[in-house]
């Protein structure tokens, strides 16, 4: 940790640079190393601490271990319904098909999932999933995933050592932040960043880079996300010339803790509902029955008796409405509180105590039990929890090719939350852990392939010096404290770009963000370069800023309500909007928005749905399988549909 060489930039090189050490980044690193490439993984925090550890419920994969009727087609259908048919259908297809293999593979790395009676991986119910589908370990599945991948990386390092390979073939560089990507003629050349511990700069030349930096949640005050979630990858990609898609869609998880204030936003896993928990308002009413939208009436029970029978007899009963997709439940809670039926601290009650035995709760939900006991003095086996919506996940992200995860910039790949399209307008619980495995692997594979064909990249001294100057800027500024500016940014987003939006408020948000821009450019850091969180936040702020602008711009443009984007002044889904993706680019300092056609689903995939269901989302000409409106449900290719959106 010597500071002697603080002014020398550390120079490194590798074939594949992975930025982000959560599930997607680590899975990409495994794949790229197995493909024979030298790999550097950059971790913003310590190795094994990435936000993936906080995932609780499980990883969705249609293995059919608990209900043999499950298969990838059913999973695909659920994913599209959850995303309100805005998903990149090819990503959703690959995801549903490959998730089981990615989960089984983890067992060969040493993962220990909970088991069924016949010794297979157990699967649990979750919102929006037709069958029990989530592979899990109690309510700490994310920890199991990250630890398993972390240990797999270590075992690959041991294999390298045994084979006499240099240690540099697979390195994890922890507590390091990347501030810039180097691009030449639309092609990736490398990256620049600093080691948090010393503040020393680092330049890494690499012909292929995988961005796996997660989301943007720290731009909101009430969030389940950790400090790292400042939209770094989103912003790096934009500045490098890539596109972001669907940035208006942000998931507010319906159940975050609401009390005490210091824990507001911390996640309460959806498994509480999957395992029998119900939502009640301050009048004791189980209110979710009043909030089943038209498109879901066929799958969700409209009375408590049927809903309760479902837990033991899912084949003959419809699901409880507490298990509707997250956007629906979050909006319902929001309305209850707004109409004066909220709890003392502005939430609603989540009750499992009156429905399941104390032993059952402690066994199935051990971390939740501890979390409430230790942080809120609440015994969830004896009393209900108070919960409310919390910013949890951004569906939007870097636009990628579904098969290869390649962005618009040659050599730049993206996987996990930082990528966009897979989840459409709303992600189903459990689809994130499987997403990062499926596309993390693909990113590693195709980044390795790209690196094999690419010219070795060379960085110039001018590029490096410019990036260094940029990173040191806050020390020379005389502006505000970065914490105050982060608060200001969070306040704008929370007040004007939250769970319920209006055109006027979004315009106001854009005006206020524009005023904040100068202040952020002039943010000041004091102290030295060694482990200085104020400086770190100062540099993260501009990323949070550009992501916030992207979200507000897209949210203003889309005047309809769909998934994680609710416009009070434009309620309901509009089939015309389903055909359109909003795409963000950056031109110099300017954030630009454009409309782009949603790719047309193949007839085979369309054929997985009843026409009556498609009619709820699409215009008739999009799904009619022949000329007549009474078409047979055969998956034959209609020429007319293809022309429509090509």
């Amino acid at each position: 940790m010597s500071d002697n060489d603080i002014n020398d930039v550390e120079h490194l090189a590798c074939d594949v640079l992975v930025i982000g050490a959560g599930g997607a980044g680590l899975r990409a690193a495994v794949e790229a190393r197995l493909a024979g490439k030298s790999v550097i993984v950059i971790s913003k925090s310590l190795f094994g601490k990435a936000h993936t550890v906080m995932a609780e419920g499980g990883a969705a994969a249609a293995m059919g271990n608990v209900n043999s009727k499950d298969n990838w087609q059913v999973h695909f259908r659920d994913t599209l319904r959850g995303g309100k048919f805005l998903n990149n259908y090819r990503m959703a297809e690959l995801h549903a098909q490959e998730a089981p293999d990615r989960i089984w593979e983890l067992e060969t790395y040493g993962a220990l999932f909970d088991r069924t009676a016949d010794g297979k991986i157990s699967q649990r119910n979750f919102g929006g999933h037709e069958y029990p589908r989530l592979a899990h370990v109690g309510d700490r599945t994310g920890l199991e995933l990250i630890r398993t991948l972390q240990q797999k990386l270590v075992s690959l390092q041991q294999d390298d050592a045994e084979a006499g390979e240099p240690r540099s073939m697979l390195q994890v560089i922890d507590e390091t932040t990347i501030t810039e990507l180097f691009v030449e003629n639309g092609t990736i050349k490398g990256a620049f960043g600093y080691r948090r511990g010393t503040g020393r700069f680092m330049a890494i030349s690499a012909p292929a880079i995988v961005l796996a930096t997660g989301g943007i949640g720290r731009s909101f005050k009430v969030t389940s996300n950790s400090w790292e979630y400042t939209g770094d990858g989103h912003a790096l990609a934009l500045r490098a010339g890539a596109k972001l898609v669907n940035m208006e869609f942000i998931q507010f998880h319906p159940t975050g803790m609401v009390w005490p204030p210091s824990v507001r936003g911390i996640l309460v896993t959806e498994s509480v509902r999957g395992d029998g928990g119900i939502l009640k308002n301050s009048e004791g009413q189980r209110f979710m029955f009043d909030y089943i939208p038209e498109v879901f009436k066929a799958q969700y029970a409209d009375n408590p008796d049927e809903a309760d029978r479902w837990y033991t007899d899912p084949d003959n009963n419809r699901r409880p409405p507490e298990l509707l997709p997250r956007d629906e439940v979050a909006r319902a809670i929001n309305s209850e509180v707004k109409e004066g039926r909220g709890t003392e601290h502005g939430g609603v009650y989540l009750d499992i105590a009156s429905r399941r035995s104390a032993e059952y709760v402690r066994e199935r939900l051990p971390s939740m039990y501890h979390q409430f006991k230790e942080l809120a003095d609440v015994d969830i086996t004896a009393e209900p929890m108070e919960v409310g919506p919390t910013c949890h996940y951004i569906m939007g992200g870097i636009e990628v090719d579904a098969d290869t995860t390649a962005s618009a910039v040659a050599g730049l790949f993206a996987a996990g939350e930082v990528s966009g399209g897979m989840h459409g307008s709303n992600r189903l619980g459990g689809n994130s852990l499987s997403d990062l495995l499926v596309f993390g692997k693909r990113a590693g594979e195709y980044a390795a392939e790209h690196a094999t064909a690419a010219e070795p990249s060379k960085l110039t001294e001018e590029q490096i010096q410019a990036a260094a100057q940029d990173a040191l800027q806050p020390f020379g500024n005389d502006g505000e404290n970065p914490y105050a500016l982060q608060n200001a940014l969070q306040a704008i987003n929370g007040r004007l770009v939250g769970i319920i939006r209006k055109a006027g408020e979004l315009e106001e948000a854009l005006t206020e963000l524009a005023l904040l821009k100068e202040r952020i450019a002039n943010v000041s850091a004091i102290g030295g370069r060694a482990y200085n969180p104020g400086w770190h936040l100062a540099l993260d702020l501009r990323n949070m800023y550009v992501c916030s602008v992207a979200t507000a711009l897209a949210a203003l443009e889309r005047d309809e309500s769909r998934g994680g984007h609710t416009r009070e002044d434009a309620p309901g889904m509009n089939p015309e909007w389903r055909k359109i993706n909003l795409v963000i680019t950056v031109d110099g300092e300017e954030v630009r928005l454009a409309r782009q056609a949603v790719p047309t689903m193949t007839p085979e995939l369309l054929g997985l749905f009843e026409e009556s269901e498609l009619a709820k989302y699409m215009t008739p000409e999009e799904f009619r399988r022949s000329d007549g409106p009474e078409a047979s449900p055969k998956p034959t290719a209609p020429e007319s549909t293809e022309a429509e959106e090509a």
Partner: protein
Amino acid sequence: MSTRNFRVWRGDADGGDFADFDVAVNEGEVILDVVHRIQAEQAPDLAVRWNCKAGKCGSCSAEVNGMPRLMCMTRMNLFEEGETVTITPLRTFPVVRDLVTDVSFNYEKAREMPAFAPPADLKPGEYRMSQVDVERSQEFRKCIECFLCQNTCHVVRDHEENKPPFSGPRLFIRAAELDMHPLDARGDRRETAQDDQGLGLCNITKCCTEVCPEHIKITDNAIIPMKERVAGDRYDPLVWLGRKIFRKGKQPKADSGVE
């Protein structure tokens, strides 16, 4: 809300001192909230490591009034109203800055730990294990790697010289986890723990168990069973003889060589 006094150690590898802060504390807050308020209002460069603020990632380990704890899980109502609360970095590891220590010792020891050895005859998807069998290992996989056990273990806490031969409780539960894994193909986990990880240096004072925020029974469920079985094997004359004959170079396992 009340104003409380805090003493926070500030400095780096070359030394440092306590800094005093008066901070407003609200109902329900934890130590990490206080540290964040100090950062936001009084010392923006105060170094602290944290991630999830929900007791799940194990980043914010420090010593509060001398007790190793996660700052995010230490509630302020644990302390008397007028009491000065002292926050110091973990003592067993070198200081980077302020409350942040260099915990790379733990990662180096993890790299020396032979990895899970998958069974050769099973393909992905063919693994079958019963819940009761996986639960024993699952207890140890709850570990969030906060390294409080490593920090508190007196074998290394005040004995720098013990660090090279001693992997510490975190890695003993890893060894136990793999030893009890129903399908791990390696048969020498206990011997490795004894011979390469320094299990013998542990004299079972249970300090590690006491500080574990995940309530893993490190001593009772991992260390003692491994010690007993190692001892049982070693003092059984037949096993001892067999070991003498076969053990040269250990069991040759196909994978996971150690540097």
